[in-house]
């Protein structure tokens, strides 16, 4: 059953060397938990961005916490390129596994369904096939002759995200952000931070249940108020664009990044 724990205890459940799956910025990113992870000195993560990331991945990369990175893109969106990602690619700071969005979802879906691989449309002709030797092009075993790309299952050790609320049983409201459910189905363990814990049963009515990830998939929950800051949390608060722009400017240099990181970590401690 789902445990409700403190933020630091939640972060302590991620071990060095594990694969960690995180959602796209607009889905609900556990930034407070990311700060707690960095504070705890996490290292050697194999990061899986579902299917892309921004500030969260760039912070983890800049702090040297990443051994490998699977993603379809890393970008700060309106604020431009992700500076530590770009620098890390050039210096070879981590193993890079470039992907394309639906291939990451397909890999998670294979894990969700307990099959070793998933077929996926398109992709043929892309140089991604050359740099991803774990992907294959096969002849379809059924129907008319047709080449199909297959990608291996992605079973993250840990999925981590932030959501508006959970109930006491550990059911988490995800609205129509079903990519968060896809993450949890595929992951061995799922850690969630929330703005608040509510007393009502989120599975009670058919409407509210439709937007819920059941506690069956949720190992631990921690409360983190404004836990996605400076990123947005749908239905709750917009992104702090000025803060993200400040990051984008400072993180252009290694020293600037260090200065930002130090302020970011102490800010999180003040909030907690």
């Amino acid at each position, binding site marked *: 059953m789902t445990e409700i724990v403190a933020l630091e205890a939640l972060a302590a459940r991620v071990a060095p060397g594990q694969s960690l799956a995180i959602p*796209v910025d*607009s*889905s609900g990113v556990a930034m407070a938990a990311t700060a707690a992870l960095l504070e705890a000195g996490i290292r050697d993560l194999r990061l899986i961005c*579902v*299917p*892309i990331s921004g500030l969260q991945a760039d912070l983890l990369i800049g702090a040297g916490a990443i051994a490998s990175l699977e*993603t*379809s*893109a*890393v*970008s700060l*969106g*309106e604020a431009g*390129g*992700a500076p530590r*990602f*770009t620098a890390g*690619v*050039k*210096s*070879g700071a981590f193993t*890079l596994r*470039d*992907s*394309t*969005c*639906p*291939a990451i*979802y397909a890999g998670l*879906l294979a894990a969700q369904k307990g099959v070793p691989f998933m077929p*996926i*449309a*398109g*992709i*043929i*002709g*892309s*140089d*991604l096939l050359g*740099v991803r030797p774990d992907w294959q092009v096969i002849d379809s075993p059924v129907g008319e002759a*047709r*080449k199909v790309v297959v990608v291996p299952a992605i079973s993250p050790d840990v999925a981590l995200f932030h959501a508006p609320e959970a109930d006491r049983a550990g059911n988490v409201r995800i609205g*129509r*952000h*079903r*990519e*968060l*459910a*896809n993450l949890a189905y595929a992951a061995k363990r799922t850690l969630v931070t929330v703005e608040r814990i509510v007393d009502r049963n989120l599975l009670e009515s058919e409407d509210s249940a439709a937007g819920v990830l059941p506690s069956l998939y949720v190992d631990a929950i921690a409360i983190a108020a404004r836990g996605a800051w400076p990123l947005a949390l*749908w239905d709750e608060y917009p992104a702090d664009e000025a803060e993200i722009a400040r990051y984008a400017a400072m993180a252009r240099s290694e020293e600037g990044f260090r200065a930002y990181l130090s302020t970011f970590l102490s800010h999180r401690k003040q909030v907690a």
Partner: protein
Amino acid sequence: MSSERERREILIATIADLLDGISHVAVGASSPIPAAGAMLLRARNARDGKAPVRISILGSQQHNFFTNGGIELFDCAAQGRVDAFFLGGGQIDGQGNINLVGTGDYPRTGVRWPGSFGSAYLYHLIPRVILFREEHSPRVFVPKVDFVSARAITPEVRRRGGPYALLTNMALFDFDREAGGFALRSVHPPFTPADIRENTGFAYEEPEVVRETPRPDTATLALLRGRILDELAETYPAFARTMKQAA
């Protein structure tokens, strides 16, 4: 500022024309000009009693018709339910291939861009992919991309999707899937065919007489400067503001 407004208005009106006849267009999260073009088509069709147009803007609450998470756009494209989409590229070559990854030798590319996003997949599946890249320069339009994020044509596999046109700050090209290359359709004023030749690093077909890209007519401009700016303001407030200020 007025010429900047004209530039944008020509792009938006051209996009609306390129989308004519579609019923569902998807637009990326930070693509105000494509979104404006789609909204212009929708408004024009509504005005003229033509078929309604559905616009999905990724990351928008208002223009989100999806309820199955991040995969739904991709599934939808695979089902043939998305008629048009926009892709860009750090490099685009004369065969229509696009590079969203970087320049030089992979993986430690000289310049690194964010990554391929969904391009490798969507290019195969969406019938009318409009390549939209404002910067028109030889460093963008290269003879051969350094990394093929998504390939334009793959004779070895049947596909429904691929490039339809390439729109830049300077010109509009058609893509010929049989020939596997671009043909100049029109040049935006004040540029000339010579400007295009000078700034395009790949070879393309050029007709004997090159048309000028038409400026939007008065009725179109009225829609664009009124209703469309209001609609844009919901999703792209900053962009709508600069368009309004330019007026």
